[in-house]
């Protein structure tokens, strides 16, 4: 059995699209306090001076969800989450480059 999604349902999480704090809370389903905490730990880097002006690049949404999973599933504290994110970003980037190189080698 397969199911089909209609075309056009996707939304690109690109750096040049931005979300307000309220939009990020709404889309991620996490409490506003948690988002504020992520900003204070430099996990999220919104543009704008204070919370009312914050504009988050769209990829922040996937990052918020990842932070929630890491905290719950691996019982990580904030420094642990920050370290895991940095290492995962690096791992991800290296895996991507590695796959691209393998594809080029054919």
């Amino acid at each position: 059995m397969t199911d089909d999604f209609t075309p056009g349902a996707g939304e690109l999480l690109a750096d040049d699209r931005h979300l307000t704090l309220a939009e990020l809370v709404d889309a991620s389903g996490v409490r506003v306090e948690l988002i504020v905490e992520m900003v204070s730990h430099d996990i999220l880097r919104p543009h704008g001076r204070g919370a009312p002006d914050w504009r988050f690049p769209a990829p922040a949404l996937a990052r918020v969800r990842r932070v929630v999973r890491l905290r719950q599933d691996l019982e990580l504290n904030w420094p642990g989450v920050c370290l895991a994110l940095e290492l995962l970003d690096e791992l991800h980037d290296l895996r991507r480059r590695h796959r691209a190189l393998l594809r080029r080698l054919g």
Partner: protein
Amino acid sequence: MQYKDYYQVLGVARDADGDAIKRAYRKLARKYHPDVSEEADAEERFKEVQEAYEVLKDPEKREAYDRLGANWRAGEDFTPPPDWEPEFSFHGGGFRNAADFSDFFASIFGGAPGGGARGGRGAHGGGFQMRGEDRQVRVQIRLEDAYAGATRSFSFVSPEIDPRGEVRQQQRNINVTIPKGVVEGQRIRLAGQGGPGFGGGPAGDLFLEVEFEAHAIYHVDGRDIHLDLPLAPWEAALGAKVKVPTLGGQVELNIPPNTQAGRKLRLGGRGLPGKVPGDQYVTIRIVTPPAHDDSQREFYRRMAEVMPYDPRANLKA
């Protein structure tokens, strides 16, 4: 429904203490966490591990599970004892991902309306809702589609809970609009297309991570496109105007006289589109025409006489 051996899942003895169970869980969670592992069945394995830990870390649930006896084998057909009454309530805290726990779990500990753990004997506590989990899928697209935008269909395998409450790998097809200018590593979010919600909660999202298929002539770095351009020696020496392919069609490139192999020429703004569009970089390769007959070999000999040249001058000590 199949019996689940939670001790076997965590790889601990039946008399393991709380610390040993926690250690085993943490080790397996790191190994199979969907954010870390690339193994195809990581998500499913991780859920099994979570379910086992949910039971074994909680003395009351563990005691109830142990009451079923030690003679069951994993995968054996299981029905709860006739007088079995789940005595556990669902509360928001600490019961994460219950939506994805097995029917076996629901039959022992109760569940909420729906399928699988959601299909058990009804949530006590009432009104408990949880958002379904997000799913991540990597998709490969053609470079041309990233340049111009396109609608493409992708197939992937996703764990789904069947009417019997068993997790099955189900093929799903999705049609997705590829936005113009998407680059590798970016994600496309399909809201509500992830795992189902719990107790009437909303479904999670599906995130497609974009990768490019290998291309016959280009390779990509961010928004920049790289191309190797072969030139004949006389084109490189005398200069030439040559037609160069770009994603947006052919353009004419001026090759300056005395261009050496390895030189890079930039075609500004001819990379992937974006707020700041990428460039196309053309790396010169000089291809030597093979000498097939005497007159051609003579021509090369004449060249050596007329223009003596040591290409290895800088290798000399």
